[in-house]
């Protein structure tokens, strides 16, 4: 695994905008092609098999949480437990998820966390870095079959859907979220699904028929939402999900409430202690006295994270999370490449590893200012 500096394409902004990528610059550079990471085939195989292994273990962990009714550790409101269990027992499908991994090309990858419910940076990983590769090194290879797998998986999911359109929704006024959702919808359309879009704020609730409705007040029976479950059930309409006469199929499914919560990390460690791809994690720091990372069980974009080394706080971020509690994870420093710290985002589409996207920072904690760096598989 190497970080290689590279000249940016002279017309790079136009090139990425031409393919529908509008948020290449967010508070500075977001899409950064001034460097790329190069992997060997063997390293890619390691990332692929690790992702597959971790996904299987995560599914084991969900079953364990359900079997042992451990929802209190996740601070999940009891009235939503039947919804979670129904979605799990009926195998409501998941379309995508992303593991964040520490990997230096030498040691086994370690799972930092699992973005199981609302992962973003999908379009960058699937299409933008692919077009970059076509421009700068045509004929070269990349760990990236995200696009085909998304299309194939939507096609596969046809039989799981209820009658009616598959709607897609996200928050209004956010370019990044809209791009992610529209890209997913693009893939669904190519898979032959009948789709619609509605902003989350426009979703209607018909209190006469007890159904969610679209703009024309037609019942919604299938919906992909780019909005976290913990927010969904907290909102005013959250309780209506339990009353919904249409039994709307929500994608991602409600069982992702378990996997997207960082309380899953201590559960995984308890189930699979010393697993080579897991970091020791606990609900308190008594086992990790001097070196640990403290993370809120519910948080986004690296907010409210603290790193303690040798008993001293060496890095921390601010934010609005933490009221539900924290977990403590063994500190595993990110590899450093000339002052840059990459995190590997390894995508799962359906149940299969599908590719990677790399986020890079100059700090120890990957936050919303991190850059997206493309990658290649080296020929040598």
């Amino acid at each position, binding site marked *: 695994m190497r970080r290689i500096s590279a000249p940016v394409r002279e017309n790079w902004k136009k090139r990425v905008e031409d393919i529908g990528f*509008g948020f290449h610059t967010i508070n500075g550079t977001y899409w950064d092609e001034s460097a790329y990471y190069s992997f060997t085939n063997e390293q890619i195989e390691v990332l692929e098999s690790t992702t597959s292994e971790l996904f299987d273990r995560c599914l084991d962990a969900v079953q364990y949480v359900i079997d042992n009714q451990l929802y209190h550790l996740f601070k999940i409101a009891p009235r939503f437990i039947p919804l979670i269990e129904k979605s799990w027992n009926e195998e409501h499908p998941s379309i995508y998820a992303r593991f964040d991994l520490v990997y230096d090309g030498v040691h086994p990858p370690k799972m930092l966390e699992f973005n199981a419910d609302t992962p973003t940076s999908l379009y960058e990983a699937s299409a933008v870095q692919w077009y970059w590769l076509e421009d700068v090194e045509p004929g070269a290879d*990349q760990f990236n079959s995200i696009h085909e797998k998304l299309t194939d998986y939507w096609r596969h999911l046809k039989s799981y859907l209820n009658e009616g359109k598959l709607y897609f929704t996200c*928050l209004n006024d956010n370019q990044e979220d809209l791009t992610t959702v*529209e890209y997913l919808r693009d893939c669904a359309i190519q898979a032959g699904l009948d789709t619609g879009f509605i902003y989350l704020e426009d979703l*209607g609730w018909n209190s006469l028929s007890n159904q969610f409705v679209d703009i024309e007040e037609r019942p919604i029976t299938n919906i992909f939402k780019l909005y976290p479950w913990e927010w969904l059930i907290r909102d005013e309409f959250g309780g209506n999900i339990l009353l919904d006469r249409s039994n709307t199929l929500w994608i991602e499914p409600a069982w992702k409430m378990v996997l997207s919560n960082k309380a899953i990390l201590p559960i995984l460690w308890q189930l699979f202690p010393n697993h080579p791809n897991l970091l020791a994690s606990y609900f308190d720091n008594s086992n990790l006295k001097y070196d640990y990372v403290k993370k809120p069980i519910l948080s986004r974009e690296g907010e409210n994270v603290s790193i303690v080394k040798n008993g001293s706080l060496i890095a921390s971020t601010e934010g609005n999370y933490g009221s539900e509690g924290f977990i403590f994870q063994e500190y595993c420093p990110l590899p450093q490449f000339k002052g840059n710290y990459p995190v590997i985002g390894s995508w799962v589409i359906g149940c299969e590893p599908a590719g990677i996207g790399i986020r890079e920072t100059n700090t120890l904690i990957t936050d919303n200012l991190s850059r997206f760096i493309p990658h290649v598989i080296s020929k040598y």
Partner: protein
Amino acid sequence: MKKSKAVKLVLVASIAISCSDHHPDKSDNRLYVRGDSASNYTSHPSYWHGGGYFWFHPYGYYSWNGGYRHSGYESPHFSSRASAHVSRGGFGSSGFRVGS
């Protein structure tokens, strides 16, 4: 080995990147909801499946006469006279950005 050639066949172009904020505007009993909404919900060209040509256009597109049209949706039914038993706005209050 891991190549993703299909991407090239299906994602052809999206021109504009603006994400301007158009506030709802009532006219002729219709409520026009933002200009930068998603693609072919109502008045938008269909995807052309037959020729293998697809158009990824999350923010809008240039029409045949060169003018730019924000993607969006409008509906004669989504108005201030909508059914009394349908309420909206019950989702979306817990955050403004999802990124993770």
